[in-house]
């Protein structure tokens, strides 16, 4: 084997160094000239004269060289042309082989290219901002509690911004949901507040007008806005005279000062989603006391390492921890903006890219296998051609040309399929996939497809040349009566099984994860529940009584609708993203030792009945929870067990630092509800009565026997009847929210599942091919065995044993690979270990079954070999 590889390498090198032709021509000519001069010298001339005569006799040296060069070059070109024609002829004479090889190749290239376009768009393409690698997101952190990315308080942001020297700029962002009160109906729009210098920091300029001046950050922020290109087009018909006009947001007129260009793609991360407009964020005495809610982005100065910038901010955070008791235990953390945006999408995409790479490897293995089979069928021809003077390098070149032609055809088909595949992928992409707009098939993707095709074709050619070329180069005599019983293509079988196993185990792990996630007890019943948000805006709802009264009226009217079984309201719906949270503690032990962080939800008393969340102990809110009544609280089971593990929490008092510190009495305990998603376990949660702490925006939660669409219509008409200026937005069945939270897991599991099915097919076809070829090759040997009385069962067992031996080695190698791959994707798994025995044993068995099944037909065919074959075959 070693010598063969070296041999091939040397031949390839010789082939590559075509320019040595020049030197060889020179050498050959110099020799001729020397001989001519020598002849003259022997005739009695002086050496100089002999040389001169020889040169003269030699004549037009350059012209001669030209002629010779032409002959040499056209020889290589001719041969290349011949080789391509030969390849095409071979493929046309074996259309089955051609189609199978090209399509398998196209499958591998197409799938890889499609996944690569997604990876390229989401992970690799640089962010559309000036020097995006200097942009970072800064978080507060609590190292002791493992809380490493927490939103930032206003005073801390101000301290970081004014004290840090490593940053060119730093800006704070906060989502700003607004109601646009205008024609024809009120509309809810998501915007963001951004501190001055935000746009300059990103390095983007407005298409029209200007962005915020630093003065606009003073005095609570001016009522000015910058519009996104999309909003400008949809609401102002792309009118360029829009600057200076006003837009009423939440009843307050805002002056439009700028419009961003269509290319501006604002960073979206954490709770920052779509942004239709931006207004200035300004620190005020009011919001300095709101706790932590800001997202902070910074641009680190050129030449300053990011780690140094982080150390500086951590130093400032340490000062802040001394200055302000509320900062005790808090530090700071930092992450690159790009990594922050791609965040959770990175690992699943890399896993998919790895998986599709394995699929490509399998496709290459199969094509190599097919090519080998073809070469073996033409072995006699190759031996004949070799005997009449074809050189080994020429035969090698022909095999490479054949795989190059297959690769070229496969690349074209695969690329076309990838263009369609990318479109399909974008359509099924999880909705929260970041940067999905930048996924497209472009030059980089084309280059990728061409490169992997070239590498794959070379790999096919190399395998075929190494394993088939050697046999092809064997002498005629040998090729006739081959007695060697070695299974050819055996290592290909092992490779197929190993690769298929890795892919299928990964698919098994993610599918089991998805199944486990679906069966998680979420703590509520989402079936036939519709949620819709209503936000109150305007002076009319400033008095708390008005807010309470409005929602009471809405709910009583909704409850009266036909088909409605229950209706209630909550400040943030389950699976509706981040909501408020607060440290809480047992008021009797210490007033300040707030040991647990709890989610906080403001609810209507009927929420638990509507969501079918069980009331474990005590009761829910009632008419006693009025505006100036002593506050009461319902807690979830996790918090109850955490604070009062061995006694009943009913009647105990909780300390909550919100609202300048309250000590509500615990009146009830409810079951745990997954508020974020299926994966994140419920943490401590406190429910406060909206009638006691009225919010200005609530999610209505309605359980109805009617279909979703009609419930949505009725909700809008109930609200409009009460106040036509109020929009109802984010209307969706709760089932959809739950489903959407699983979309990434579903996406990964579905794609990996599809890859696994394809890989099993490839493995089956590949293994079948090897053994079909093996049996055909050994007909004589089998015939002799049958003639000597071997029972057909014995013959089948003989073939099967070879298959199983190879498959078992493949299973062993694949298991090692799958263990490594499973570890790498551990954070994607839920409810199953990276070495999940069910997946591993199940898939190993599956692969062995596939291997045996794929060998069955050739084995049975072997058993039917007539003993006469022993005589007939030469």
């Amino acid at each position: 084997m070693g010598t063969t590889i070296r041999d091939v390498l040397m031949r390839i090198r010789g082939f590559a160094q075509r320019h040595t032709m020049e030197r060889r021509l020179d050498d050959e000519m110099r020799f001729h000239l020397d001989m001519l001069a020598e002849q003259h010298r022997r005739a009695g001339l002086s050496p100089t004269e002999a040389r001169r005569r020889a040169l003269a006799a030699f004549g037009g040296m350059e012209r001669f060289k030209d002629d010779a060069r032409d002959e040499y070059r056209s020889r290589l070109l001719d041969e290349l042309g011949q080789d391509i024609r030969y390849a095409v002829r071979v493929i046309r004479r074996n259309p089955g082989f051609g189609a199978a090889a090209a399509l398998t190749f196209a499958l591998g290239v197409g799938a890889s290219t499609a996944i690569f376009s997604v990876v390229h768009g989401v992970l690799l393409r640089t962010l559309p901002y000036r020097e995006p690698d200097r942009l970072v997101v800064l978080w507060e952190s609590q190292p002791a509690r493992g809380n490493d990315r927490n939103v930032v308080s206003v005073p801390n942001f101000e301290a970081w911004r004014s004290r840090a020297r490593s940053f060119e700029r730093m800006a704070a962002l906060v989502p700003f949901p607004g109601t646009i009160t205008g024609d024809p109906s009120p509309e809810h729009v998501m915007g963001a507040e951004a501190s001055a210098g935000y746009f300059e920091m990103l390095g983007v300029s407005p298409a029209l007008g200007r962005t915020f001046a630093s003065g606009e950050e003073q005095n609570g922020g001016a009522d000015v806005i910058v519009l996104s290109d999309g909003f400008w087009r949809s609401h102002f018909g792309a009118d360029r005279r829009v600057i200076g006009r006003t837009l009423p947001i939440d009843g307050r007129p805002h002056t439009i000062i700028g419009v961003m260009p269509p290319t501006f793609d604002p960073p979206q991360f954490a709770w920052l989603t779509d942004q239709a407009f931006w207004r200035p964020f300004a620190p005020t005495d009011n919001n300095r006391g709101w706790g932590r809610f800001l997202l902070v982005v910074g641009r680190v100065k050129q030449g300053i390492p990011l780690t140094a910038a982080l150390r500086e901010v951590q130093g400032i955070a340490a000062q802040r921890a001394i200055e302000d008791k509320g900062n005790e235990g808090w530090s700071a953390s930092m992450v690159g903006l790009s990594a922050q945006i791609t965040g959770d999408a990175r690992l699943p995409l890399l896993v998919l890219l790895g998986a599709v790479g394995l699929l490509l490897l399998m496709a290459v293995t199969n094509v190599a296998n097919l090519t080998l089979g073809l070469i073996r069928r033409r072995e006699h021809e190759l031996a004949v051609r070799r005997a009449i003077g074809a050189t080994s390098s020429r035969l090698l070149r022909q095999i490479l040309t054949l795989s190059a032609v297959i690769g070229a055809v496969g690349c074209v088909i695969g690329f076309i399929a990838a263009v369609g595949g990318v479109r399909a992928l974008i359509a099924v992409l999880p909705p929260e996939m970041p940067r999905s707009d930048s996924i497209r098939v472009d030059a980089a993707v084309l280059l990728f497809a061409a490169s992997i095709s070239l590498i794959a074709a070379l790999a096919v050619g190399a395998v075929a040349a190494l394993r088939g070329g050697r046999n092809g180069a064997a002498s005629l005599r040998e090729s006739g009566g081959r007695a060697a019983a070695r299974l050819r293509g055996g290592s290909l079988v092992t490779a197929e099984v190993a690769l298929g196993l890795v892919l299928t185990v990964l698919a098994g792990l993610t599918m089991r994860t998805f199944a486990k996630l679906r069966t998680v007890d979420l703590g509520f019943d989402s079936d036939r529940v519709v949620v819709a948000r209503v936000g109150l805006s305007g002076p009319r709802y400033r008095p708390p009584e008005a807010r309470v009264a409005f929602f009471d009226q809405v709910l009583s009217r909704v409850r009266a609708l036909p088909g409605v079984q229950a209706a209630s309201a909550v400040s943030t719906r389950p699976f509706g993203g981040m909501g408020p949270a607060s440290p809480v503690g047992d008021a009797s032990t210490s007033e300040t030792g707030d040991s647990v962080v709890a989610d906080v939800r403001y609810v209507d008393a009927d929420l638990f009945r509507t969501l079918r969340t069980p009331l474990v102990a005590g009761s829910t809110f009632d008419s006693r929870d009025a505006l100036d009544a002593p506050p009461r609280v319902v807690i979830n089971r996790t918090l109850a067990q955490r604070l009062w593990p061995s006694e009943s929490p009913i009647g105990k008092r909780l300390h909550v630092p919100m609202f300048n510190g309250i000590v509500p009495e615990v009146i009830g305990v409810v079951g745990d509800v997954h508020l974020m998603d299926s994966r994140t376990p419920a943490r401590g949660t406190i429910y406060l009565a909206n009638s006691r702490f009225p919010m200005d925006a609530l999610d209505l939660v309605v359980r109805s026997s009617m279909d979703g669409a009609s419930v949505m219509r009725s909700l809008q008409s109930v609200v409009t009847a009460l106040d036509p200026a109020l929009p109802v937005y984010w209307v969706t069945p709760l089932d959809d929210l739950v489903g959407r939270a699983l979309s990434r897991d579903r996406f990964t599991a579905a794609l990996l599942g599809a890859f696994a099915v394809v890989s099993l097919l490839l493995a089956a076809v590949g293994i079948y091919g090897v053994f079909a070829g093996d049996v055909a090759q050994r007909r004589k040997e089998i015939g002799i065995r049958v003639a000597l009385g071997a029972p057909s069962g014995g013959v089948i067992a003989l073939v099967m044993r070879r298959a199983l031996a190879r498959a078992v080695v493949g299973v062993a190698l694949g298991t090692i690979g799958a263990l490594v791959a499973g570890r790498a994707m551990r954070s994607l798994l839920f409810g199953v270990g990276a070495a999940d025995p069910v997946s591993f044993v199940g898939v190993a068995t599956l692969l062995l079954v596939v291997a045996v099944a794929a060998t069955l037909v050739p084995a049975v065919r072997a058993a039917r070999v007539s003993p006469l074959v022993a005589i007939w075959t030469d």
Partner: protein
Amino acid sequence: MGDKGRGDVLQGTLDMLVLKSLQLGPMHGWGITERLEAGSERVLQVGQGSLYPALYRLERQGYIASEWGTTENNRQARFYKLTTLGRKRLAEERALWARMSRAVDLVLRMGEG
């Protein structure tokens, strides 16, 4: 060159003559001209300008093969040798040549009794 009674090789016969000279054994380009000149009693002269292109052409067509070797004077030279295909070709060319030269001869002797 210019000598009376000496001439360039007939167009089309060079390939055959080269193949024939190699039938005697592998040889380098210089040696082939020597063989041809000696074999034709110095009547035929092969110019380098046509010899080497012919060699490369024959090699491309697979009638001859080449490899580097050492001459009797211990110099490196490129040796050409006949392939099986070339041997066949030479036989065909010879047969054709025999028929052609006989035909030409017959025509030239017309009416000369």
